[in-house]
């Protein structure tokens, strides 16, 4: 990395760009081809179809350059619309190395430099660096010099000499969580939707032929359902495999490395100083299967860039806890006991779950009394039972703790998550209480931070406990606003 020189990206991008461009313009290109063919063929169309993408690729290559100078990373690009992106090196939060199969074929990688502050547009993207160069550049940018000496073009997942064993590494048995992820559920919905349409058509056919074919139709339907299930299973497992193949979470001297991917490999590097905390989330499916996923709260990375914040994909609960303990340096924030929020908070969970359910329930009962069919009474019972189950689970989830300098909170039922935020990354406090909450002596405390969702929230804490928590973590800040100054 010669200092101050404007550098071109790797010339091998001349191979990658045209393929990219063709991919982008595939529709107009097809249109042009068809149009050309039906009109009796103007050879110019065919020429343009091949020439324009190639030309654009060359232009892109020639007009893009980058440099490291005066403690800044700068990227220049564009022919007509010249653009200069520039950011100080000490603002670099994360570095992503991503290689699509095309990139990997020619030994290249794309570097995305995350600087936070704004949205994705603020990110610098160097598309097309030689893989070795990219790793050198990354070490330079994150001042992770110890890695630069050691790191070779090892396969992701190989333990490098001098480094501790990975905090978490892919195992085939994680694949059982694939159907329980949100992608799994989306795929399931899609296949079921498409499948029912298909089945609907089959049904009509069967009716049309003859009644004694009905038995056969049932068999067909059953077979279709089973096949559907298998397809969904295969798709989700495949999706999980493609994304998380050879996943490794590895500590380097000043950074955490997350690498994964079967076809497109992705390697994210997080600066340890920017790691404000972690969040363990347990969506319903995963929770049933005793799994969880772990993400990092990274200063300067907001929820729009959450892809970079994944620490562990859906994996067994124990693995996630161990990884979190490794990342935080203590297992108590993630595995330790939580304090309950008291009876008022419990009553509030029940009231908030039951009241909205009670309105339609009462309406339905009134309808039955007024003469609607009696079996309708099942609905209000189900409604109230569901609400009660939800309330009980939300009560069980609710908790908080202050341990080892971390604020730990847990809440939610269907979207249960447990967050741990280091006190050094708390950049303010917010308490919110409605009139109802004040009357019950409760308040919702939020520690604001510069990453993730922007805050970590403890729902319905007893008001005094909320202030005590804030005071414990940042005594100087909160102490001056206490009604009776600190004891």
């Amino acid at each position, binding site marked *: 990395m010669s200092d101050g020189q404007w550098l071109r990206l790797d010339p091998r991008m001349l191979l990658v760009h045209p393929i990219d461009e063709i991919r982008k313009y595939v529709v107009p290109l097809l249109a042009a081809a068809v149009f050309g063919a039906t009109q009796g063929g103007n050879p110019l169309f065919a020429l343009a179809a091949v020439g324009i993408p190639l030309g654009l690729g060359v232009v892109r290559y020639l007009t893009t350059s980058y440099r490291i100078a005066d403690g800044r990373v700068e990227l220049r690009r564009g022919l007509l619309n010249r653009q200069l992106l520039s950011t100080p090196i000490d603002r670099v939060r994360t570095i992503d190395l991503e290689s699509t199969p095309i990139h990997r074929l020619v030994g290249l990688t794309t570097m995305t430099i995350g600087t*936070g502050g704004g949205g994705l547009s603020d990110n610098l993207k160097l598309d097309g660096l030689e893989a070795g160069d990219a790793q050198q550049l990354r070490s330079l940018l994150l001042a992770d010099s110890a890695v630069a000496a050691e790191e070779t073009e090892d396969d992701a997942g190989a333990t490098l000499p001098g480094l501790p064993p990975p905090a978490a590494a892919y195992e085939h048995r994680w694949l059982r969580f694939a159907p329980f992820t949100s992608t799994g559920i989306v795929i399931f919905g899609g296949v079921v939707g498409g499948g029912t349409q298909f089945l609907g058509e089959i049904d009509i056919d069967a009716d049309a032929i003859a009644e004694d074919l009905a038995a056969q139709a049932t068999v067909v339907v059953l077979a279709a359902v089973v096949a559907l299930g298998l397809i969904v299973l295969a798709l989700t497992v495949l999706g999980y495999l493609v994304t998380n193949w050879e996943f490794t979470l590895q500590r380097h001297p000043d950074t955490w490395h997350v690498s994964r991917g079967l076809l497109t490999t992705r390697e994210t590097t997080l600066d340890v100083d920017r790691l404000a905390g972690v969040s363990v989330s347990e969506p319903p499916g995963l929770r049933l299967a005793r799994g969880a996923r772990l993400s990092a709260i990274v200063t300067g990375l907001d929820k729009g860039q959450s892809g970079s914040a994944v620490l562990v994909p859906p994996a067994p609960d124990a693995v996630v806890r161990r990884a979190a303990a490794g990342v935080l340096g203590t297992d108590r924030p993630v595995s330790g006991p939580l304090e309950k929020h008291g009876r008022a908070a419990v009553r509030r969970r029940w009231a908030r779950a039951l009241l909205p359910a009670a309105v339609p329930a009462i309406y339905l009962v009134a309808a039955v009394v007024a003469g609607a069919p009696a079996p309708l009474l099942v609905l209000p019972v189900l409604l109230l039972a569901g609400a009660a189950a939800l309330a009980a689970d939300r009560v069980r989830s609710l908790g908080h703790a202050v341990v080892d300098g971390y604020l730990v909170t847990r809440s939610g039922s269907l979207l249960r998550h447990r967050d741990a935020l280091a006190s050094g990354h708390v*950049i*303010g406090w917010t308490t919110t209480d*409605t009139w109802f909450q004040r009357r019950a002596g409760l308040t919702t405390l939020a520690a604001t931070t510069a990453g993730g969702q922007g805050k970590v929230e403890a729902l319905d804490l007893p008001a005094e406990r909320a*202030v005590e928590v804030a005071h414990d973590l940042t005594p100087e*800040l*909160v102490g*001056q*606003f206490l009604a009776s100054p600190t004891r």
Partner: protein
Amino acid sequence: MTEPAFVLRDPAHRVSPKARTLWQLQCGLTAGIGVIGLLVGALVWREYDARWWVLGAAVLVGAAYAVVVPRWRYAVHRWEITDTAVYTQRGWWARERRIAPMSRVQTVDLAQGPIDRLFGLSTLTVTTASAAGPLRIEGLDRPLALELSERLTRNAEAAGGDAT
């Protein structure tokens, strides 16, 4: 009676009393527009028998809103700026208190809408690096707001760092 140990006191200063008048005007306008909308509806939609009752109820609710809410807000809205922190309290039904250390203040923004200008009031918005929203003090007298904004900017610069 002994004071409980961990209770936040209110921030030291109230906003300008003119803010109450401003909010009365704003709430009155909102309620007025709602009532006029319903009145037009009642004149047009003649088949609905209870329309005058609905309108009457709306007038009562609107009047209560315009009378009660501004007073309530004025009672809640308070602010305090110390050498090391900014502390605000706002809202009415839902009360929100925010504390931000001076060293984390990123931008200080002074805004004045057309109605604000009529009353000589300003809104001071202090943002931190958190995506969870800024601290806001509404209804400050213009000269005071200017002074505070300068002081905050100076203090935040003195605190240094990149505020994250």
